[in-house]
């Protein structure tokens, strides 16, 4: 019972880690792209 419980929590935490890594892979380049675009937008108002 406890073995299956610890196995379940390991699966859950590794799934969570995968979700975090994948979101980071998406968000980091996206934030870089938004930053680069905003740098151009600043020229519009300066």
């Amino acid at each position, binding site marked *: 019972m406890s073995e299956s419980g610890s196995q379940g929590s390991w699966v859950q935490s590794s799934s969570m880690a995968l979700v975090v890594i994948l979101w980071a*892979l998406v968000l980091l380049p996206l934030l870089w792209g938004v930053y680069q675009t905003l740098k*151009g*937008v600043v*020229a*519009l108002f300066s």
Partner: protein
Amino acid sequence: MFTAALCWSSGFFIGALGVATTQLWLVYFGYGLVGGIGLGIGYISPVSTLIKWFPDRPGLATGLAIMGFGGGALIASPLTSTLLSAYASNPVDAIVPSFLTLGAVYLISMMLGAFVVRLPAEGWQPEGWTPPTEEETSDLETTANVSAASAIRTPQFWLLWTVLFCNVTAGIGILEQAEPMIGDFFSVEAAAAAGFVGLLSLANMAGRIGWSSISDYIGRKPTYIMYLGVGAVMYFLLASFGSASIALFLLVTVVILSFYGGGFATIPAYLKDMFGVAQVGAIHGRLLTAWSAAGVAGPLIINAIADYQTAAGRTGADLYTLSLFIMVGVLVVGFIANLLVRPVDPRFHMEQEEGHDRETSVSGSPAGSEA
């Protein structure tokens, strides 16, 4: 998604070969045809998959997926510029390595996505949520399913096709001419004009997730009434008073572009409401021919009118007045088409068993029910 990854990245590799061997037809074939097929498949797959993971918030789901498409453009544009300047002092010499790098980056990232993304298991639903019954849903929200083959025989499909066509044509009206337009309206410098294009890209992306999520609360039909009705008013303001103030010009164009993005993102959820979730990806694919048609019609209209106005000796904001008023008319046509949308006749509904024969070929095998 596996096929999309292969086609899209192959497009870059074949395109690089075409540039390296100075064979232009290879560039058209690779980057245009093969890459284009990958783009189309890759656009639809996440949308239909996410709708199934978020049965309680389909607008949010489609907004997330299609915002990703808009966000990709925000990454690709500066990334391409960075690669072109990093590989060689002359950008022409950097095209081949840039294409190869982009192809490899896309192949790895899209394969990662294809590996992770799964359809939910049959019967899965979010915790604490129960599907609404026919009585609990609005008139335009069905609990039945319509096959893709039947959907294109319904007037609703062609009304929504017209809605998307008009919304995209009007959006392209601004996008196509954004950079020269702000220059002609206000004589701004090239860097500021490029910044304006960037601002429109951000509005486009924000509109995809923002307006589409809001459509979960106010309904799909009212959302399109806003896109097309308020959009027509915005175009009218732009044509009539756009050159009076740069603040008004920016405000109006940002709203128009947010509606353009929102129109793309909300349409799959509208389709899900009208035709059910079973074959929404296939129906969405057929509806996106409206995007292709608008991609041809929009620039043709805008460029032909701009040439005509230039030949007539007009300058500045006057170059665009007629085009902008035509776009008001285009949006009014879409507005009327949206008003005419009614629930699908039950004779088009699939049998219960057919409805369970879900789209598994696009996104792979279903995920476990524990998710």
